[in-house]
Every structure is written in C-alpha cells, then in structure tokens.
C-alpha cells in the first residue's frame, strides 16, 4: 500500500448499511476519514441535499477526495467542487440505469458487483471516463476470528415510510412554485 495514503483524508458520504460500515473501517485503517451521513451511529448528521461546498467549509482539513455511497444523501454542487468525487455503487442490480444517471455527477465510478458480467456490460455501455469494477469483498477481520464471528457482508435497505414530517404533495408543490 502506498504510504502516501496514510497522510490522506477522505470525506466518506454514506448511510447505514453493512457494506458501507465495513468500507468505512477499511478506509479508516489507511487514512483519516471524515464521515457525512446519518446520525444512526451517533455520527455527524447531514441533510440529504446539503451543499458539498458548505460542508467543506466546515472541515478543518481539505479531503483528498470525496467518496459517496448512499441511497439517502446526494449533496448539491458535486459538479462544482474542486475535489475529485467518487461514486461507489454497491449491489446495483436493482435500478442500475437510474443509478448510472446520477453517477455522472461524479468524477469516478466504482461498482461493487454482485452480478459481475451483467453489470459490467451495462455500466461500460455508459462510457464513464474513469470506471473501476470491483468484485464482492469479504470482511477479513471478522472471519479470521476463531469464535463468535459477529459480522458478515450484506446489504440493508430501509423500508419506505410515509412519515408525518414529510410534506404532502400539494404543500410541497405550493412551496416549489411559490
């Protein structure tokens, strides 16, 4: 591993999910990680459409790149930020065309593939300039334990809930159209 990475800082935007958590831990072993995500782990809470430029204003260190892996949070101004942005799509069998559309906001696209060949064909057809295809991975630290292996890979998807806090359609539209 390049020793340069030890001095790096990565801004990692992610929501809850085992894959994201494992990746976060893996990055944290290599460099500093700023986390922008939900507050479910008691971490820094960010609004789903917060401006990346404003988030960067609050950080003490300018990250080397921004890594995004979230179905709940897509910061604004990704197309204007002067830091490389990386989109990581995990298990993208469902809704791949839609994901590839918004992935174009990012400089780099990494796809962790469950359906390797299938996804590769669909992803490469989109002609991303910098595309990295990764096969599934495994959490080494956990499986090496002799007893009481506690975590395995997986993907959690939260159920859509129509909460009271959400705007109803026309109240939202009223707001939109002023």
């Amino acid at each position, binding site marked *: *591993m*390049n020793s*340069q*990475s030890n001095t790096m800082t990565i801004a990692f935007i992610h929501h809850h999910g*085992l894959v994201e958590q*494992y*990746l976060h*831990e*893996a*990055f944290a*072993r*290599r*460099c500093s990680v700023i986390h922008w995500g939900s507050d479910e782990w008691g971490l820094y809470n960010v609004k*789903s*459409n917060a401006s990346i430029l404003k988030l960067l204003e609050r950080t003490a260190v300018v990250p*080397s790149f921004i890594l995004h892996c979230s179905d*709940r949070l*897509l910061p*604004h101004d*990704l*197309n204007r930020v002067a830091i*490389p942005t*990386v989109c990581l799509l995990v*298990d993208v069998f469902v809704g791949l065309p*839609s994901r590839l*559309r*918004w992935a*174009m*906001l*990012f*400089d*780099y696209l990494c796809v962790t593939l*469950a*359906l*390797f*060949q299938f996804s590769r064909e669909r992803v490469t057809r989109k002609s991303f*300039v*910098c595309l990295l295809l990764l*096969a599934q*991975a*495994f*959490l*080494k630290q*956990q*499986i090496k334990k002799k007893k009481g*292996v*506690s*975590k*395995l*890979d*997986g993907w959690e998807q939260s159920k*859509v*809930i129509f909460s009271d806090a*959400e*705007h109803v359609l026309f109240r*939202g539209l009223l*707001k*939109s*159209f*002023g």
Partner: protein
Amino acid sequence: MNEWWRWHDPKEMAQVYRRSKIVVNISRDDYPQDANMRVFEAMAGGALLITGLPTELTELGFQEGKHFVGYHDEREIEDLVRYYLEHPQERLCIAEAARDLVLKEHTYDRRAETIIETVQQHNGEFFAPARQWDNEKVGLTYLRYYCSCCLLDCAFEELAQLRRLGYRAAMKGFPLVLRAFAVRLKASL
C-alpha cells in the same frame, strides 16, 4: 444443514458458514454464473464451495478443482456432496486454497486500497460528465435521485430551484415528483 425456512441475521449466518463443511451455491435463475456475496462468504468461512458452472469466479482468479467444485446440472450436487464428505482431505485442500485467496484478494481492505490507488493514479483529475452540463440538466439529475429515493422534501426543494431556472425546467421535473409521491403513498397504504 442450513435452516432455510427461517431468516438468519448476519451474525447467525457467519456461524452457519463457520460450521459448514460444504456450502452449495445455486445462483439466481436469471443469472446463474453470478459470483455473489454468498460464494465469498462460504470460501472465507473455510467451507468447500460447490457452485454452478460456468461461474464468474473464474474471471476473478478462482479455479475449478483448486478453489471450488463446479457442477453443470443440479442433479450432480448430491453425488458431489457425498464424495467430498467422504474425502475430507480433498475437501479441506480445496477449501483452504479458496480461503487463502479470498482473504488475500477479496477483502474490504483490498477494495479500499484499489479505490485510493485509482484516484491517486489520475492525480485527482475531474472526469464527471456533469461538470460540463447546464444547470437544468444537473438539477433534473438531482431531482431524479431524490425522487427515486422518495426524499420528497429534497425533491420539492429541487423542483423549486428548477422553477427559478424557468417553468420549462420545472415542468420537466414535475412528473418525477408526482411519481415519487405516488410511490410513497402506495408504500404507506
């Protein structure tokens, strides 16, 4: 034998893999060669993997007979399982080779390294197609994301921004918001 009739949480699944001598992978019908998460879990857990052929595992450096055992027809599975239960040395040899390869090449640490190295190789160049787009196209892309995630608050804010760009832009986004609302409504019923 796995208790297939009930759901296992990840912690339990790890224990199942650790206890298993053999894990049989039958991938989804519409993509039988799938190198899914289960095959990595099985091999990392130290079990012998028996999986369908052809498999994408061969593209990733795994060899049949060395790291896993393959079958062409599901009717072969029973005989294969019986054979490898009766020949523990052969089973352990394959399982150990697979485990070594998975732990060496297919961990999250390796994936993190690969991502970091890729960005470093390009010296932080900007490649995003959206950096060349106009505001309307960028706004609609954000709107699609918020709508697909049913983040209605954000979708309405985005629609308001598109409205500031002009009614034409807002009207393009309007059907997306309507659809997201319908999805949210349906899910809540």
